[in-house]
């Protein structure tokens, strides 16, 4: 007989998994122009006019291209509805309209967008069957990938850039090109799903976090990346802004081990794993609540623990996300997470270079400089965000804002520490 409650919880996890897949594969986008606050009245009209001109140009050049490409091509059927540019048989179909851009890949040969288009469109990799980008944004060329500024309102007017198809971490100079509205790009999250690889940047007035490129002459990269490289390419600054780019890994580790973890002060990720450095956790926190049956090991003489990040999510490929956590030095917890075996995690952990005193000092100083408020609240049974806000006499939004490293979507864990906002 089914346990309905249990089945519904399973359904929730399944639905979350589906939601995640949708968010990666089909970012719904908004034209940056349309999300400007209080835009001039004439702007939408001008934008619409510009879009019409652009699409008209694309239709004309697209029809020209289609004709030149010979058999297997066809021209758009009408100006009103045929916003398609159809390439040679077996190649890419590029559909462009003022409100949507979609690519359906049929080959690996790059197909430039028609002249007059807002940017150059390139193919997604051959193993990507279809990429649909519902967007009113302008695609731009990102050295072999298609980047789209989507203006996703994920904060202070952030503009997301979705870069699809390159299948490799972005280079710093590529990121530096993305400075919409004078903002620097920061944060990246590279995720691979059945629809391909996407790399997302968030444009904001912060420095950037970038997956470090693997040096061509590095014999052990990416299996054993150098910590200095990680640090150099990692934000040491507004930890709250960095932390959200992390997957739920550390939150889940905290849930799995019961550990009380603070803001990561540094993070870097490769395609298959991620390294996070924390300074606000203590080994006592870990030891007090580590399950008795958790597998223990050691990393360069430090006691370490393997933990399954989450027993119920991210099972594609049959390998679960594991974490290896240890205290690198007093007050500094390092965690490596990835869809890797214990041996793989251990190899990465052992391969990390120990930072110099100056590097550690700079990390800690940076973290402390950005600690908004040392006052904390420890979560107790039956606490919710609202309950805690009421207890503290602060606004719910202020409480959430003061804890950028805590995902408000996730359950609070008893014993978890939350920062108390400075002003009610």
């Amino acid at each position, binding site marked *: 007989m089914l346990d309905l409650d249990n089945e519904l919880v399973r359904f929730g996890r399944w639905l979350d*998994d589906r939601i995640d897949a949708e968010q990666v594969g089909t970012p719904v986008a908004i034209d940056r122009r349309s999300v400007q606050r209080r835009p001039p009245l004439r702007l939408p009209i001008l934008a619409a006019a510009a879009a019409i001109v652009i699409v008209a140009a694309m239709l004309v050049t697209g029809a020209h291209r289609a004709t030149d490409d010979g058999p297997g091509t066809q021209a758009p059927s009408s100006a009103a509805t045929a916003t398609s540019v159809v390439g040679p048989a077996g190649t890419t179909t590029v559909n462009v309209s003022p409100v949507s851009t979609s690519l359906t890949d049929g080959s690996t040969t790059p197909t430039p967008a028609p002249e007059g288009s807002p940017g150059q469109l390139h193919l997604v990799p051959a193993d990507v069957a279809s990429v649909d980008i519902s967007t009113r944004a302008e695609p731009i060329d990102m050295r072999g990938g298609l980047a789209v500024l989507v203006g996703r309102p994920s904060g202070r007017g952030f503009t997301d850039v979705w870069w699809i198809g390159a299948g490799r971490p972005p280079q710093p100079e590529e990121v530096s090109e993305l400075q919409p509205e004078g903002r620097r790009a920061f944060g990246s999250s590279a995720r691979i799903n059945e629809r391909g690889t996407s790399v997302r940047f968030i444009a904001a007035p912060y420095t950037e976090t970038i997956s470090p490129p693997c040096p061509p002459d590095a014999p052990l990269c990416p299996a054993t990346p150098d910590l200095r490289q990680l640090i150099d390419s990692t934000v040491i600054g507004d930890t709250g802004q960095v932390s959200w780019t992390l997957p739920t890994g550390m939150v889940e580790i905290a849930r799995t081990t019961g550990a009380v973890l603070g803001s990561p002060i540094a993070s870097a990720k490769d395609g298959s794993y991620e390294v996070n450095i924390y300074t606000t956790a203590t080994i006592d926190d870990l030891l007090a609540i580590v399950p008795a049956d958790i597998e223990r090991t050691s990393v360069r003489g430090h006691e370490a623990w393997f933990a399954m990040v989450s027993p119920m999510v991210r099972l594609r490929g049959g390998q679960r996300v594991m974490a290896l956590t240890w205290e690198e030095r007093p007050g500094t917890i390092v965690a490596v997470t990835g869809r890797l075996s214990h041996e793989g995690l251990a190899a990465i952990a052992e391969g990390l270079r120990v930072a110099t005193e100056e590097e550690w000092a700079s990390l800690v100083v940076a973290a402390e400089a950005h600690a908004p408020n040392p006052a904390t609240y420890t979560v107790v049974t039956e606490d919710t965000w609202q309950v805690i806000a009421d207890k503290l006499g602060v606004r719910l939004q202020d409480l959430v804002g003061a804890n950028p490293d805590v995902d408000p979507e996730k359950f609070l864990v008893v014993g978890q520490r939350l920062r108390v906002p400075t002003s009610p």
Partner: protein
Amino acid sequence: MDQFEAFVRLHEPRLRRALSAAYGPVLGVEATADAMAYAWQHRDRILAMDNGAGYLFRVGQSAAARLRRPGPRFVLPEPSIETPEVEPRLIELLEGLTESQRVCVVLVHAYAWTQQEVADLLGVEHATVRTHLARGLTKLRNALEVDHA
């Protein structure tokens, strides 16, 4: 972190779950994005509201109505793709509930929201949520022949 960012961090994931419960993950994600875009465009007004999230849920409902396409809301993945186990019959049965019943059942029992939280989001009375919940669960239990305990 400014007020709007905190608002987004708090409410966007919750809206996404709620709208996905109502309309399935594909449409739910799209509707959430539309709702958050609306929130940004009208951020001052939304932030001043007592129940901005509830207002945005209704914005998302309107977006979903515009975007709705024929077909099931919840599509099971290919068997070859390993995903968290889920009872296929449950998905079918959830499809058969009314939208309100489904949202209440999923948010309360799958995501552990309180009934009051759901009531706030839907902009209805607590008792209404309780009724939707009871009716939805009864349908599911009868169909799945599980204990009513």
